[in-house]
């Protein structure tokens, strides 16, 4: 990945000073963070803290008013989503957002329209998710919630991401199913992918990730390696306790 002489410790993704607006409403205020190569970063925060907005901005769906997004050494602040996918950034959106009139397989194929060079072929995806292989001809909305989430992840993998952004993949799913999905994510990490995970469940986020960023009302309240912070510190940052 760092074949062109960048320092080996350089982050895969670097964000600085991002301001993002929805009309008159400002969702992010000068957000900066960096995502180390090959790691997993948990993005936590209360509802409305700006986690989804930040992921959408990284994915290119939300243009920032100012600040920059640098990926793998290149400035991609102005790049449209399909260019970012071609560079290896894929997103699993909040609420899965599968295409209801497409079959499972078609949903996955659509994920590959702007694929990066490392795109996963269908067979590899079905090997990784045997439960959806059986359902490839069914329409996506007929699947269970866990299966739908697996399809949403598979759709992102079809693009061959080096950076996978996952937005609340455990929402509304049974604990066992979530356990399964996180098992898959661990497999992706060991295969070299970098993950950014938005997760409501703080314990799970801290177990699965080695780096943590906590947003509070559109600002970064805490950013640290998971090993260096206690659960209480994160909770304090989460609720904004101890602020003047």
């Amino acid at each position, binding site marked *: 990945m760092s074949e062109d002489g960048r320092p080996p410790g350089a982050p895969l993704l670097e964000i600085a000073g991002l301001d993002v607006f929805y009309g008159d409403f400002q969702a992010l205020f000068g957000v900066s963070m960096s995502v180390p190569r090959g790691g997993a970063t948990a993005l936590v925060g209360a509802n409305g803290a700006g986690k989804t907005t930040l992921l*959408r901005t990284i*994915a290119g*769906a939300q243009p920032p008013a100012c600040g920059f997004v640098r990926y793998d050494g290149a400035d991609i602040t102005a790049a*449209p*989503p*399909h260019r970012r*996918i*071609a560079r290896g950034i*894929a*997103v699993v*959106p909040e*609420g*899965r*957002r599968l*295409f*209801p*009139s*497409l079959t499972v397989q*078609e*949903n996955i*194929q*659509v*994920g590959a*329209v*702007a*694929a990066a060079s490392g795109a996963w072929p269908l067979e590899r995806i079905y090997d990784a998710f045997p439960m959806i292989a059986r359902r490839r001809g069914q*329409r996506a*909305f*007929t699947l269970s*919630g866990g299966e739908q989430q697996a399809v949403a992840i598979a*759709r*992102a993998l079809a*693009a061959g991401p080096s950076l996978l952004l996952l937005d*609340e993949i455990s*929402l*509304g799913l049974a604990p066992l199913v979530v356990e399964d999905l996180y098992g898959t994510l661990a497999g992706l990490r060991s295969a070299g992918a970098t993950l950014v995970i938005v997760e409501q469940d703080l314990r799970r986020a801290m177990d699965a990730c080695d780096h943590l960023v906590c947003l509070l009302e559109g600002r970064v309240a805490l950013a640290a390696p998971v090993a260096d912070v206690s659960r209480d510190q994160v909770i304090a940052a989460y609720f904004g306790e101890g602020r003047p």
Partner: protein
Amino acid sequence: MNWVNAVIQGMLLGGQYALIACGLSLAFGVMRIVNLAHGDLAVCGAYLGLVLSSVLGVPVWVTLPLLLPAAFVAGAALQVLLFGRALRHGVLAPVLVTFGLSVMIENLLQVAATSDPRGLNGGALTLASFHITAGITVSWLFLTAFLTACAVLSCLQVLLSRTSWGRKVRATADDLDTARLVGIRVRPVFATVAGIAVATAALAGVFIGTIGTFDPQAGTNTLIFAFEAVVIGGIGSLWGTLVGGVALGVTQVVVGEVNQAYAVLAVHLLFLAVLTIRPGGLFTSHQAAAEVRARGVPG
């Protein structure tokens, strides 16, 4: 025997309505735009056919290899330059823009071609017919129009369900924001869909002009029938559009058999009845309903 004949003639007429309607249905289904200039674009196709066939001195069918690509390019250009911009400004802007386009086209045609009714040179096909039984005579031209409608709908169906382009179109129609997010370039998708919509409209215009006559104002009436066919069939369902067109055509001819004065009124009443009883149209299947439910599920 009169009634059987009326039903057959009505079905064939319905094929023409479906041909003009399928582009409207496609554009609405994918881009959520009701193109009020759709009928006028069909009439433009008829005028283009008139010019080409007069200049070249050939029946209008021969000009289709020129006419259809030109219509496709015009549709794609309209989408990129006009409709796409309008779509970024809420739901009202596209209505105003396409309505304005409709008024402009009608007046420009009036200036350029006068309001004289015109007909197209359809060659030998125009007057040819064959007998099924003593009382039933089928015009080859009507049959060709019907079969063309079926062929166009089949091609569209195959393109949409079997090709990579079709997957992108359906994904974009389902959820524009997510389509962008997974890397679909929406503008080329929209441009090709608009191009196909206008090309099918122009093809329908050629049939309208060959079967009957047309003038610069003919587009409005054409649009109404097309719109009714789409709504009766169920928005977004191509085969529903064919059924909708056939329902309109059969109603028109059968009622016309009783009293010609009520034929068109009956068509509009059928439309109103369907809209009242099944507002989603005849072919909004349980599947579409399930999709709506699926989207309603939180999370």
